[in-house]
Every structure is written in structure tokens, then in C-alpha cells.
């Protein structure tokens, strides 16, 4: 039995203490190899790390270096797993330096790359003692690797939890499906894979919609090869058909990828596409299939939500268009234009409306209104309000009576919703266009006179549906040739910037100064756009209707 004096015991104690503080396997060699060099007769201590494919992934040494030309022989010695072997002529350079024998020990830790330690010793070395010391060093090393592996497993679990949380956050933050697909791929790379491709089913065809790689140039080059692209596409198709498994290439493929894992994108019982995860890393670093499935499920849900949102929004825009006149009448002497912008985040039909109708006596009625609230009930009321007012005004009923009839109708239906509305009656006059404005609680229109600053006209009245009797505010004005009247809903003026300032505080009037003499089509569209840009987006629906007395109007 070998006696162990205090010096070696102190060394071992230091090693065991250090086991708890190292964070990477690369730190191990500097810790465990040098101590054996202090033993009499020891010339070198070498460490070999074995990769799963049977090769050596790292060479380390203390003392005489493990030279390139000696490595093959060192590997043979390690493979023989003999506790002690003589140094043969293959290692002549070592023999020349007094080396005569080599002690060998292998260490295996399940789940981690195995290692071998070789101690090169001279003829005078105390072999039994060295063997005991080596065994103790192997124990320390094995424990260090086991702890690193446990730490890594815990770190990976933490990372995967964080990735799922962050991926959900990132993907839920957008409703645009293209962005969602890109974010899903970008979150995965390089944390869990070297690359990620997103294939999406569109009209029964599988299309590559996003491709992300830690080395994008490499992936682009690989995808530019039609055979490689077809191979990936085929794998994705087979995944959709339910018969694709993880693919291992014997050697790395043209993209340097060792493993490709297909994962179906499925949400609410519908297959949306496939994620292909590309791995360069060894199998031990590839996340478990359950995790990849979970990540793909979250991506699929986010993509599906985006698609549902898009569908709903398209429906809203279509329905909104049906609540508005398909075209406006052409009236000699009056230029007319309207614009309607649906709010960006809107998924329900809004209540803004406008129309222009002509009476048989040539008087033109331009009307604009806003039913409070959104959704199917508001949409039904919107249709009813526009048609009621339009029909009555066309038949020659006065604006006050038409608005009164609508008020009665709303009250009779017992709806809690109210409606603001404004009607401009336009009559040719000697010096332009005479306007009688009738307002039921609607925002005052704006008058744009040639060469002068824009001015708000009068509003007044009470919204319809509130009181048993309609209260209408009336005012008159004259539009000279070139002057225009701008009618709108409150979505235009109430857009707010990041500081909460409303569009009509200053920016509206600056935009009007700029657009005052523009054609009415330009006026309504650019004004609507200016409001949206001011607010960062179209927060609410915006209806704008403009009429201008034309220059050649001869009264």
C-alpha cells in the first residue's frame, strides 16, 4: 500500500475544492494534469478527449508536450487501456529524454465525452505510487465532468424555459405572419440549432418562408444548390405527410449540417407547415424532441393567430366597403371626394359613414356620420342611418326632418347607441355654392378658402338617439369658387402622438395649409394619411368627405 504524505493530500484537497468552481471542461486540464508532474520520475502528463465518432476532440498536456507526430501513438496506448506499458521505439524522442514507461487510465462519464490520461515516466519512477495517484486524479476529474454535465443539463433546461417564454413574447408581439415566422426561426438560432427553416403550406403548396442560420452566407450558398434545396423541401413535404424522421448525414452535408430535424407546425388541428432545424453540433447538444415540438407548437399558434387576424381584418374591410357608397355622384360645378381608412388594429366593423345624394331640383346633400361603438350592431345601425338619410334627402325631405326621422327610428329600436351626423345642403349661388350645414352633435366641418388659413365652421346640435326630439344645429356659409368644405369623423382629429397631443391641436392645421389648394382627391387622402402618420398608425376609422366649388361654376 502506498503511503500518502501531506503534500499530495493537500494537492488532492485543493483539486476537490476546485471541482466545484470550474465552469468549462477546457479548464480541467490546467487543474488536473500538472500535479502529477511533481511526482518523482514523471516527465509528462497527457490528456485525450474522445469524441463520440471515435476520434480525439482535444489534446492537452503538462510537462513534455504531446507533439503532433506522437499523437497517433498516444492514441494507440490509450486504446490498449493497459495500466502500464513500456515506451517503444515509436516514441523515440521521448525515450531520448529518459521516458521508459507510460501509465494509462480511462475515464467515462455517461452523457459526456470520455477521456484518457497518460503519465509518461522515467525508469526511476515509483509505479505503484504513481498508479494510486493517477487513480485519485481520475476520480477528481470524473467528478468534475459529472458536475459540469449536471450544471450544463440544468443550464440547458433554464435556457429552454427562457427560450420558450421569450419566443412566445416575441411572436405574440406581432400579428403579421411573415414577421412571426421570421421571429420563430431567429429565436432558435443559434441557441438551440445552427439553422432553422420555416416552410408554410399555402394553397396546398409548401413554400420556404424564412431561413435563418448562424452563418447566413453558408446557408444561402447551400440553398442556391437546387439539389440541396429540393432535398430539404422533400424532407419538409414528407414531414407534412407524416413520414419524416430526424436525418443524420454520415458526413456533414454541403451546408456543413450533421443533423436535420423536421418538426410539424400544427395548431388547432390544422397543419400550417414545417420547421426544419439544422444542427452542426453533436447529438448530445441537440435539444430533446419534446422541446422542439413545444417550440414549434407555439410558433404554429402565433402564425395561426396572425392568419386569423388577417382574415378577420379582410372581412372587416370588405364589410366596411359595403356600408359605404360604391361611388359618388358627378355633379357639375362641384368637385367631390371621400376617403375611408380602417383603423390598423381594428378587427370589428366601425360606424363611420358618408354619402352624397342629389335631389331632382339639383340640390346636393353631402352627409357624414358616426355611430358610436363597433361590431355587428353598430354596422347594422350604420347601414340603416346612411340609407335612411340618403333616401329621405333624395326625396326632398329637409335635413332637419330627415335627421329627426332617424332620431325617432333609433329611439323606437331602443338602441343605447347614439349617432352623430352632419348634412351639408349645397345649392348653386350667384357667387359660388351656398351651403346649409345641419349638425346633430357632429364635429364642425372646416372651410378652406383660397389664399386664407383654414377655419372651423360651426357644429352644434345633439347626437341622434339621445333625446326624444332631435336638436339640430344649423348654420350657413358660402363657398366661393375654389373654396372647399371638409367634413369628417372624429378619427381624423383625435389621433394622438406619443405624448398624447391630438392631431387637431396644431398638425391638422399645418397639413391643411399645405393641402388647401390641392385637388379634393389629394386633399382627403393625404389628410387621412397625415393623421395616421401623426398618430403612428390609424388608431380609429377615419372618414373624410370634401366638396369644392369649382372655378367654372357659373351659378
Amino acid at each position, binding site marked *: 500500500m502506498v503511503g500518502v504524505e501531506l503534500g499530495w493530500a493537500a494537492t488532492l484537497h485543493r483539486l476537490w475544492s476546485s471541482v466545484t468552481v470550474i*465552469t*468549462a471542461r*477546457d*479548464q480541467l486540464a490546467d487543474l488536473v494534469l500538472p500535479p502529477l508532474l511533481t511526482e518523482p520520475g514523471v516527465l509528462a502528463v497527457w490528456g485525450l478527449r474522445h469524441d463520440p465518432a471515435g476520434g480525439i476532440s482535444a489534446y492537452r498536456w503538462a510537462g513534455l508536450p504531446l507533439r503532433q507526430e506522437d499523437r497517433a501513438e498516444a492514441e494507440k496506448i490509450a486504446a490498449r487501456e493497459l495500466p502500464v506499458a513500456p515506451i517503444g521505439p515509436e516514441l523515440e524522442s521521448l525515450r531520448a529524454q529518459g521516458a521508459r514507461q507510460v501509465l494509462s487510465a480511462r475515464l467515462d462519464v455517461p452523457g459526456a465525452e470520455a477521456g484518457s490520461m497518460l503519465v509518461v515516466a522515467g525508469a526511476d519512477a515509483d509505479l505503484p505510487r504513481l498508479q494510486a495517484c493517477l487513480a485519485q486524479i481520475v476520480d477528481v476529474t470524473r467528478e468534475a465532468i459529472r458536475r459540469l454535465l449536471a450544471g450544463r443539463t440544468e*443550464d*440547458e433546461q*433554464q*435556457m429552454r*424555459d*427562457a*427560450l420558450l*417564454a*421569450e419566443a412566445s413574447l*416575441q411572436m405574440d408581439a406581432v400579428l403579421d405572419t411573415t*414577421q412571426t415566422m*421570421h*421571429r420563430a426561426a*431567429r*429565436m432558435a*438560432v*443559434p*441557441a438551440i440549432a*445552427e439553422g432553422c427553416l420555416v416552410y408554410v403550406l399555402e394553397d396546398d403548396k409548401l413554400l420556404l418562408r424564412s431561413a435563418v442560420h*448562424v*452563418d*447566413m*452566407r453558408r446557408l444561402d450558398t447551400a440553398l442556391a444548390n437546387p439539389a440541396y434545396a429540393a432535398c430539404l423541401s422533400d424532407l419538409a413535404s414528407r414531414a407534412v405527410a407524416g413520414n419524416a424522421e430526424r436525418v443524420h448525414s454520415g458526413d456533414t452535408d454541403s451546408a456543413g449540417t450533421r443533423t436535420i430535424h423536421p418538426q410539424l407546425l400544427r395548431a388547432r388541428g390544422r397543419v400550417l407547415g414545417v420547421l426544419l432545424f439544422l444542427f*452542426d*453540433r453533436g447529438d448530445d447538444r441537440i435539444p430533446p424532441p419534446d422541446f422542439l415540438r413545444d417550440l414549434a407548437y407555439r410558433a404554429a399558434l402565433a402564425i395561426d393567430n396572425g392568419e386569423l387576424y388577417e382574415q378577420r381584418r379582410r372581412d372587416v374591410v370588405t364589410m366596411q366597403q359595403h356600408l359605404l357608397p360604391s361611388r359618388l355622384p358627378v355633379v357639375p360645378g362641384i368637385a367631390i371626394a371621400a376617403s375611408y381608412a380602417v383603423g390598423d388594429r381594428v378587427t370589428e366593423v366601425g360606424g363611420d359613414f358618408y354619402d352624397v345624394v342629389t335631389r331632382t331640383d339639383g340640390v346636393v346633400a353631402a352627409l357624414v356620420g358616426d355611430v358610436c361603438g363597433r361590431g355587428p350592431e353598430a354596422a347594422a345601425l350604420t347601414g340603416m342611418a346612411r340609407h335612411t338619410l340618403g333616401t329621405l334627402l333624395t326625396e326632398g325631405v329637409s335635413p332637419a326632418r330627415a335627421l329627426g326621422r332617424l332620431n325617432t327610428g333609433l329611439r323606437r329600436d331602443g338602441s343605447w347607441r347614439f349617432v352623430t351626423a352632419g348634412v351639408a345642403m349645397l345649392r348653386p349661388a350667384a357667387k359660388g355654392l351656398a351651403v346649409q350645414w345641419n349638425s346633430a352633435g357632429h364635429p364642425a366641418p372646416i372651410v378652406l378658402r383660397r389664399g386664407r388659413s383654414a377655419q372651423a365652421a360651426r357644429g352644434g346640435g345633439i347626437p341622434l338617439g339621445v333625446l326624444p326630439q332631435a336638436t339640430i344645429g344649423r348654420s350657413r356659409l358660402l363657398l366661393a369658387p375654389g373654396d372647399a368644405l371638409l367634413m369628417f369623423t372624429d378619427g381624423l382629429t383625435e389621433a394622438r402622438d406619443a405624448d398624447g397631443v391630438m392631431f387637431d391641436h396644431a398638425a391638422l392645421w399645418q397639413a391643411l395649409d399645405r393641402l388647401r389648394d390641392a385637388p379634393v382627391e389629394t386633399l382627403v387622402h393625404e389628410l387621412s394619411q397625415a393623421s395616421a402618420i401623426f398618430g403612428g398608425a390609424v388608431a380609429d376609422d377615419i372618414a373624410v368627405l370634401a366638396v369644392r366649388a369649382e372655378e367654372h361654376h357659373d351659378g
Partner: protein
Amino acid sequence: MGETDRDLVLVVEDSDEDVEAIGRAIGRSHPQVRLEFLRSGAEVMPRLTAAGATLPGMVLLDLNMPGEGGLDVIKRIRAEPAVSALILVVFTSSEDQAEADACYAAGADSYIFKPINFALFRTVLHQTLDYWRSRG
């Protein structure tokens, strides 16, 4: 131009928090790697092109910095033959795909997202360094 030190990573980052986090993450995953920090884009070219300067194995670049941003730095490095072969990794919290496209067009090797969670942050850097160091 001096030699290249593969164990040296040049980090261009203006945020104190990110400088600390990058140091902590790489210090743990790659203890053999030395980090050199520059706090603005304008410091990069003078550092790389100084007489006898040691070149890093990789440059880790923040994108949004006051003054010269990461995109400008990429363009300047790629335009200077003496340093144009450097590995350039953009490490950013930006989610703008147009920025990613612009960085790749300018010559970035990687465009990596900067996570909020530290465990993820560390993993992303770990894998990025592993990848490029294995190819360097």
C-alpha cells in the same frame, strides 16, 4: 498589421449592462477567451489599423450605438483590405428584418438576437463563439 489572436474577441458595445453581461457570459463559457471592449463604433478602425495591432479572432458588434453604428463599422471594416477578413457578428435586440438584411449586405457574418434572459443570452453567445471558433 499585426498577428491574429484567435482567443481574443473584440466587443463593440455602448451599454454598461450589456458589457457586464457579455463579460460574465463568455467568461464562464469560454474562460480561455480574452475580451477587449470598445464603447463606440468610432474607436474600431483606429484600434484595428494601429501599427502592429493584434487582430481579434472575432468582432462582436452592437448595432445601435450613438454616432457610428454597427452597420457603419461593418462597411468600414469590409472596405479596409488589411482587416476585411475579420469575422463580424452583429449582436442586437433589434427585430427589424430590414436591418438584418442591411447588415448581411454590408458583409456581416452573423446577425444574432440579444435575448433578455441571461441564461439564454449566455447560450446564444456560447453557441456563436463555438461556431466561429471551430471555423476560424
